């Protein structure tokens, strides 16, 4: 394929695309389409709970109907005698497991772990489970399990008078200068409170698993963002060696942070499989996905900004609160964007965590940065209006030339370029700052801007690259592809390094028997895994070339060359003299079945224990400010909304976002991820909210008809512009994070646009119609 063909086939190379305009689709930086796409759209891709196993039985959960109290008794008689029932699990008969190490690597307490609760701390907690021959039988029998409770008053949410101020999290405290005094004496000041509700990941594929024991070996088919982390959890729960647990997860129907851990229901299925000696499938229902694991915690922030008359920030005082569960700890770092987005001589941020009767909250696309940006990026807009300065101009006036918190230079920060490119494409200069100054009939039109950022999270990775007898290349890793494009970019990486067409590379992912990988979360996977594959593929290529040069049966043997070139699957000398043979021919003539090379990016002196830790916890992850630089992705969103003045309905009519994710390994896939983040951000801004019945402490809109996420009709054309440049401080090949960046800053850009349209500042998400009529 010529360069020209590639470019016309893969279409629009976007303006500002940082990748070299002339890259082949198949090389790193090319716009290769998703290699797993055909399998997904034809249904050939088999998801976890679609596995067909002999003797498969079905488990269904019974959940608590109170939010706080204790299970008095569980009457299982009717369920046990129901047709097809094999086992009814309750806290009384369920196998006791060991408590497992957590994801941070914290050693577990020496206490048993029981996934079925007797002490109830939230509504929807698992209290029992029924396993039957058929799914329908299990459902029917689960309804026959009678649980009686002693109920105690619940703390239902952050607004509950019993909730109190919560627990100060000292590690979240960030202070420099004298923020309170500087705020008090600043000539221009704003102070406001910003709230975000409980939000949920709502992946298209709900959670679930099939567990099967063979002796003391456990196989689990389960959608997973972290095979090795989850395998470790199962191994520790059951006290079997890590190697005895095999996690299989080749395809994942979206995770958004929710599929990195083995949860209570996972344990229930694995226990049932062990007790019954046959495979057990447990599919979490959509309503159960709202309580079987946690969504984003509800948050409250107050942001006080003091500035001089020119809008230069003198002080930022930030206080944040997020909810966590009664017995678990989740800290949603609310000061994470607040402390780095703008230069300020005085700063104070503190955070408390409040225990309420909820499932322990979890990660949802850009945990921390997302709500943090809603606070600071709304507040700076308010400051702009208070100071009478254009919202874009005030951001440039307060541009942080270095990391204000770490006091280190940025590795790269193309945020100024993002503002410029976005403003130009959007037409920001034509904006009349006056609220309610644009309308089209009944529609008030508003334009808003906000910035976003996400840190570059780094870890070490390993991969196996094989060059096979037929000249094809195989890549193996236990990392995963949940739609972001791992299969594709690893094929591109191996293809480029070895010198074969990408279609001749087979990437195998999602099996814990493959070389290990850390969590796919925090937007780190692409940077980590392209680095590892690059290394392994380079080693494989070296072996190939070495063979070709030195093997007596090689057609190149006589040439006495120092090196050879491999391109398009063929080997030749750099000068073009001598033969040109395919990789397959060479391996044939030297009599080799395959060449294989393992590569990892761990420090050379790493011990086996270091490696195990690196892949099964995040304890060894490198800080984004480690060394001389502070590393982050950056973006600027420019958004137009139309608000119906009578109805209060908000529709997003235009989005232009300029983003700096460093070098893009595949611009097409990066753009899709950015857009996906922006789409989720639109839903977050306008629709998404877990609604709690405050008498029962229960989420009542726990289904996709009532928990609203954006539909196609809610999404306008989205223009994304890449302004990144390669950042070799961030990753081996120069990329920074992509997956989470896009959502950060969307909600405040929309809230700011709504203010511009209507003159009403909505500080509570989502911006539903009753807040505007």
């Amino acid at each position, binding site marked *: 394929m010529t360069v020209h063909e590639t470019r016309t086939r893969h279409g629009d190379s976007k303006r500002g695309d940082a990748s070299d305009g002339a890259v082949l689709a198949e090389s790193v930086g090319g716009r290769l389409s998703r290699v797993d796409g055909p399998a997904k759209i034809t249904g050939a891709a088999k998801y976890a709970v679609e596995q067909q196993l002999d003797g498969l039985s079905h488990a269904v959960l019974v959940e608590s*109907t109170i939010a706080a109290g204790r299970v008095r008794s569980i009457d299982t008689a009717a369920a046990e005698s129901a047709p097809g029932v094999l086992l009814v699990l309750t806290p009384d008969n369920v196998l006791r497991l060991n408590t497992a190490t957590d994801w941070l690597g914290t050693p577990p307490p020496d206490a048993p772990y029981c996934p079925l609760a007797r002490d109830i701390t939230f*509504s929807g907690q698992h209290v029992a489970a029924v396993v039957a021959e058929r799914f*329908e039988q299990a*459902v*029917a029998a689960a*309804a026959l399990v009678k649980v009686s409770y002693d109920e105690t008053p619940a703390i239902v949410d952050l607004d509950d008078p019993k909730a109190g101020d919560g627990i100060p999290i000292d590690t979240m405290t960030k202070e420099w200068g004298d923020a309170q005094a500087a705020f008090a004496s600043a000539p221009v000041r704003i102070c406001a409170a910003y709230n975000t509700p409980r939000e949920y990941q709502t992946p298209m594929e709900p959670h679930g698993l099939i567990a099967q024991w063979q002796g003391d070996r456990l196989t689990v088919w389960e959608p997973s963002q972290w095979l090795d982390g989850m395998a470790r959890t199962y191994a520790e729960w059951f006290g079997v060696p890590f190697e005895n647990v095999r996690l299989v997860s080749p395809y994942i129907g979206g995770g958004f942070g929710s599929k990195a851990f083995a949860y209570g229901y996972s344990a229930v299925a694995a226990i049932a499989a062990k007790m019954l000696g046959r495979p057990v499938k447990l599919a979490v229902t959509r309503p159960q996905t709202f309580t079987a694991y946690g969504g984003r915690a509800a948050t409250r922030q107050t942001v006080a900004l003091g500035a001089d008359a020119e809008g230069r920030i003198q002080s930022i005082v930030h206080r944040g609160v997020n909810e966590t569960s009664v017995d678990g700890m989740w800290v949603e770092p609310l000061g994470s964007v607040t402390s780095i987005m703008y230069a300020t001589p005085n700063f104070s941020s503190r955070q408390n965590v409040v225990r309420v009767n909820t499932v322990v909250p979890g990660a949802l696309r850009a945990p921390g940065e997302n709500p943090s940006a809603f606070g600071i990026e709304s507040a700076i807009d308010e400051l702009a209006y208070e100071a009478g300065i254009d919202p874009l101009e005030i951001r440039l006036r307060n541009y942080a030339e270095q990391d204000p918190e770490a006091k280190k230079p940025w590795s790269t920060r193309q945020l100024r370029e993002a503002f410029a490119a976005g403003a130009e494409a959007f037409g920001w200069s034509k904006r009349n700052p006056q609220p309610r100054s644009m309308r089209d009939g*009944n529609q008030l039109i508003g334009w808003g801007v906000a910035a976003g950022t996400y840190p570059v999270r780094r870890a070490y990775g390993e991969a196996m690259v094989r060059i096979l007898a037929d000249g094809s290349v195989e890549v193996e890793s236990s990392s995963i592809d949940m739609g972001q494009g791992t299969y594709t970019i690893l094929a591109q990486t191996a293809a480029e390094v070895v010198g074969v067409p990408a279609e001749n590379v087979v990437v195998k992912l999602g099996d814990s028997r493959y070389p290990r990988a850390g969590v796919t979360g925090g937007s780190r996977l692409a940077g980590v895994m392209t680095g590892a594959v690059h290394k392994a593929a380079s080693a494989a290529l070296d072996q190939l070339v070495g063979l070709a040069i030195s093997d007596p049966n090689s057609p190149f043997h006589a040439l006495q060359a120092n090196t050879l070139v491999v391109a398009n699957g063929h080997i030749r000398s750099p000068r073009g003299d001598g033969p040109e043979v395919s990789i397959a021919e060479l391996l044939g003539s030297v009599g080799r079945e395959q060449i294989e090379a393992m590569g990892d990016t761990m420090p050379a002196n790493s011990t086996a224990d270091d490696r195990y830790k690196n892949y099964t916890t995040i304890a060894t992850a490198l800080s984004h400010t480690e060394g001389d630089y502070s590393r982050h992705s950056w973006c600027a969103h420019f958004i137009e909304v139309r608000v*119906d003045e*009578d*109805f*209060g*309905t908000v*529709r997003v009519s235009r989005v232009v976002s300029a983003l700096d994710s460093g070098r893009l390994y595949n611009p097409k896939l990066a753009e899709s991820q950015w857009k996906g983040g922006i789409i989720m951000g639109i839903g977050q801004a*306008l*629709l998404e909210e877990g*609604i*709690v*019945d*405050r*008498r*029962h402490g*229960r989420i*009542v*809109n726990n289904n996709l*008809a*009532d928990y*609203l996420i*954006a*539909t*196609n*009709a*809610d999404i306008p054309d989205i223009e994304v512009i890449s302004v990144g440049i390669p950042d070799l401080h961030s990753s081996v090949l120069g990329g920074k994070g992509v997956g989470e960046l896009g959502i950060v800053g969307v909600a405040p850009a929309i809230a700011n646009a709504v203010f511009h349209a209507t003159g009403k500042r909505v500080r509570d998400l*989502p911006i*539903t*119609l*009753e807040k505007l*009529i």
Partner: protein
Amino acid sequence: MRDFSYLRANSIDAARQAAALPGAMLLAGGTTLIDLAKCGVTEPETVVDITHLRGLDTIAVDDRGAMIGALARMSSVADHADIKSRFPAVSEALWQAASAQLRNMATFGGNLMQRTRCPYFRDPANFPACNKRSPGSGCSAIGGVTRGHAVLGTSEACIATYPGDLATALVAFDAIVHLGDRQVAVDDFFLLPGATPDREHAIGPGEVITAISIPASAAARRSTYLKVRDRQSYEFAAASAAVGIEFEADGRTIRDLRVALGGVATRPWRARAVEDALKGKVLEPDAVRRASLLAIEGAADHGANHYKIELAPRVVARAILKVGETA
């Protein structure tokens, strides 16, 4: 969902007989029935499948009106050229309802019988108290999450909103439900909750909706369905209005006006007070806005649904002005 027996009816009479048995329920598109069975709300002992009955899916439109078979799919009716031209409000109510997939499955008859989206009604395991589900058990919604609940036609026993769009258009244009030979005006087909919210429709055991007819009218021809909601698609109405206008020869004076509200009442809600206030008057924005306030006469909120009282008259006014202004 518990096990049930499945029976495929091969004639309407057989369907009637089977449906009269205790615990039997008709199955049309299944989009309400299966959904509620999964929630544990309906527990049929026998499911009587009527989708194989012949001749119940016809759509016939002539100068007297439309006759639509109970098994006609929502999508087929929405796309029907004569429905679009003679009853635009009906077509618009249909295509703004649910999602494309649901509209392809769901039937005209089943649509009338859809149940409320009250979250307490839909979750028996967690909320045993629901007068609609189990008479006399109480109402879990009152005092709870009421954002979607009704402000019109409520009772102390139940405040659940009738969620459908189609029936709102049907009551505006005096449609008739055909239960075989028996005919019931759509307006009488939907019952107010009163003390018996479990009784929602004027239909007896063993009765089958066979067709719905809509008389032709000038107002139906010049009509619209305006649906307001936070999400642009695939959401029930926060408030909606079906409106049709017939002008006198002067093109300004209102001869006939039909107004019905959706998403705000316990049943499809004909707003005759608005109609009466404007009939004989010249269409004029301020007068329309004033008259539209009559749509929510007697409305009472339960806190979080207060916005519906503000919203509904605005939706009515916009819809009247919209149809009034189009040539």
